[in-house]
């Protein structure tokens, strides 16, 4: 054996076998690459580049650092916590004049505003009046706005001095920088992001579990019915896919609202009183009900594709070996549907975590999820904050994906 492997194999005309093989296959490989090249280009252009940009925006913003070079110099020369002296105000005044000339005060203000709210208006207002800035600069600044005496404003500008910053992530984690540069949690009533993240994941988990409980029997029925009936049922399952999401959501509003079909029916039956109508929409309950309905097919389809190929002989074998129907289900059938359960759950969960339209329409105040907040920041041109939140959401989903791979194995996933 050893002397066989010692000399590398060659072809009949003496070329190394590996080289000959690579050459023989290179043409086929080039053709295969050309076939996927358009898709590759499309994915790179429309997916990888935008995501890269988004990630970049979440920690890179040179609005202030590019437009306030003199102030930056002063920050470099003086350690954090130094009270701004006349030189500092002089440098800032020079930058303000330049900003006014170049109309870049807005950009700079936006950047500082991420770190300390309401500083955008302060900076734009000062830049607008930059012509009034004359020595002694400190007094001139204070004449425009007395907040220039506030150490927090200077700390905010100092942390905006670098184009690269983790500030957006800090905010997304409900944290901020103190005046001395240390990191602390924001005040109790200002903590919204972590709460929303947790809520988003919890609501998504609830939706996933509800979908699984509802989809499992349906998928099983689909898989065991004769083909003609199964196809008919499958159309019913897919019907929601062909209906506009808005129509579906609106019909849920018709069903669930205070004066809606279900409440009217229950009142008519006398189950609930007219003033005791159930509040089933414009709250978290509404979000869960409607999103479960919207995402149900994504659970049914992978389950069905897995169940369809489980031969009925397994269950029969288990029964003939002495297992009750419950044991057969638990020990034979259920384990074999795991790839479908995993795929469906992962799919539904990931879609639910990022879902936006449904919570926006039926979520009311407490049914809003993190994606609604991302939307809010985007509407307010707060792109970096939206990017940071999205990146954290992406990271959360990737962690879950990794966990799934560790626990169940990604090659056990069957999407269809």
């Amino acid at each position: 054996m050893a002397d066989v492997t010692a000399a590398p194999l060659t072809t009949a005309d003496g070329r190394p076998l590996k080289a000959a093989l690579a050459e023989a296959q290179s043409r086929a490989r080039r053709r295969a690459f050309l076939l996927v090249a358009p898709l590759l280009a499309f994915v790179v252009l429309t997916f990888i580049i935008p995501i890269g940009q988004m990630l970049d925006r979440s920690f890179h913003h040179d609005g202030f650092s590019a437009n306030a070079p003199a102030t930056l110099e002063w920050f470099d020369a003086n350690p954090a916590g130094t009270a701004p002296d006349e030189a500092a105000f002089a440098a800032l005044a020079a930058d303000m004049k330049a900003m006014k000339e170049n109309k870049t005060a807005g950009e700079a203000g936006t950047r500082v505003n991420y770190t300390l709210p309401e500083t955008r208006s302060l900076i734009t207002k000062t830049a607008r009046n930059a012509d009034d800035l004359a020595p002694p600069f400190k007094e001139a600044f204070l004449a425009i706005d007395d907040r220039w005496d506030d150490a927090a404003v200077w700390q905010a500008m100092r942390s905006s001095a670098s184009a690269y910053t983790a500030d957006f992530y800090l905010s997304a984690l409900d944290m901020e920088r103190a005046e001395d540069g240390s990191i602390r949690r924001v005040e109790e009533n200002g903590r919204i992001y972590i709460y929303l993240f947790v809520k988003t994941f919890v609501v998504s988990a609830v939706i996933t579990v509800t979908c699984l409980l509802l989809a499992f029997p349906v998928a099983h029925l689909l898989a065991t019915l004769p083909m003609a009936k199964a196809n008919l049922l499958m159309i019913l399952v897919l019907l929601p896919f062909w209906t506009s999401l808005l129509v579906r959501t609106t019909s849920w509003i018709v069903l669930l609202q205070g004066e809606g079909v279900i409440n009217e029916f229950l009142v008519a039956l006398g189950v609930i009183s007219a003033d005791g109508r159930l509040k089933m929409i414009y709250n978290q309950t509404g979000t869960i009900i409607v999103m479960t309905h919207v995402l149900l097919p994504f659970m049914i389809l992978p389950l069905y594709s897995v169940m369809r190929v489980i031969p009925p002989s397994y269950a029969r074998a288990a029964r003939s070996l002495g297992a009750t129907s419950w044991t057969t289900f638990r020990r034979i059938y259920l384990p074999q549907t795991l790839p479908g359960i995993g795929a469906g759950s992962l799919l539904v969960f990931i879609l639910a975590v990022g879902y936006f339209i449904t919570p926006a329409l039926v979520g009311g105040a407490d049914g809003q999820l993190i994606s609604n907040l991302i939307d809010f920041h985007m509407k307010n041109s707060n792109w970096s904050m939206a990017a940071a939140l999205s990146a954290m959401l992406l990271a959360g989903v990737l962690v879950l994906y990794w966990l799934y791979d560790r626990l169940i194995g990604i090659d056990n996933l069957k999407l269809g």
Partner: protein
Amino acid sequence: MAEKSQNDAFVVFDHVQKSYDGVSLVVKDLNLSIAKGEFLTMLGPSGSGKTTCLMMLAGFETATNGEILLDGRPINQVPPHKRGIGMVFQNYALFPHMTVGENLSFPLEVRGMGKSEREAKIMRALDMVQMGKFANRRPAQLSGGQQQRIALARALVFDPKLVLMDEPLGALDKQLREHMQFEIKHLHESLGITVVYVTHDQGEALTMSDRIAVFNDGRIQQLAPPSDLYERPDNSFVAQFIGENNRLEGTVEEIKGGRALVRLNTGELIDATPVNVSSTGQKTLVSIRPERVEFKPDLLPPDAHMIEAEVIEVIYMGDLFRTVLKVAGHDDFVIKSRNTLGQRVLTPGEKIQIGWAPADARALDPI
């Protein structure tokens, strides 16, 4: 006979009927008793009702009418898991998410057996099929033949008195199939279990069984030991279905002393044994096995009738010659002669005389 075996029968089908759609019967009035320790094969073409019978016995289908008894106890209302019947499935149905050992452990676990006892039984069952080293493998890592053995071991591990096998060797190649036939046969003998075996392969049925029930059209056409079935078929269907068979159509001319003279439609006169015919003038189909036809007159009884045949084709098959003849207007008459030293090899176009012993030609019902 039916009455006598009814008393010591282990499995009894008593006037069992089965319909799936309420319009037609898949199994029509089945009466069958299987003795303890017997190897009974249900043989028949697909759709003949044999698998339905097996499924009713296993409990996966319910009889529409009639009673099935197991060890004297009616089992129509007993669910499959309480019947204690081992079963080997066509595609083995080994649980893919369990190892071989876990597969075998499953029937013992659901019976609440202790761990040490389970392990001893699993090892014994695996050794029985020579798979002792494979307990930790997954079914997917085994070859078809190995999976077959494991399926067999799993059906036997909990010591069932009755084992059902639904075409268990159908997916194996020919050589392995023949080998497994003998192994199953030997296991049956050494364990003393009762086996009900379903197949559409007549060779398998003939090799393995104590008795064979030939199914067609929802009925048992003949229930007999293999040699009877092959040599003395009761009707045309059985004669056609088991082994190769030559058919000659004609009319009974005379029945005398357990021997019938049949005038073929083309005018020749041949000898036969009357089976399904009783009077002269009846239409009949005479069936003769290819290996019982002779073309050397000195090997035939002195008073046997001979008829003329023309050789169409001679096929060399190693151990024998298969010769196709034109006889009485049919050009699909086959004879088989052993490839012995000095055997006379026929040549196409040659005209010969053929004949047979009257006992080998059976005058059956016309189709």
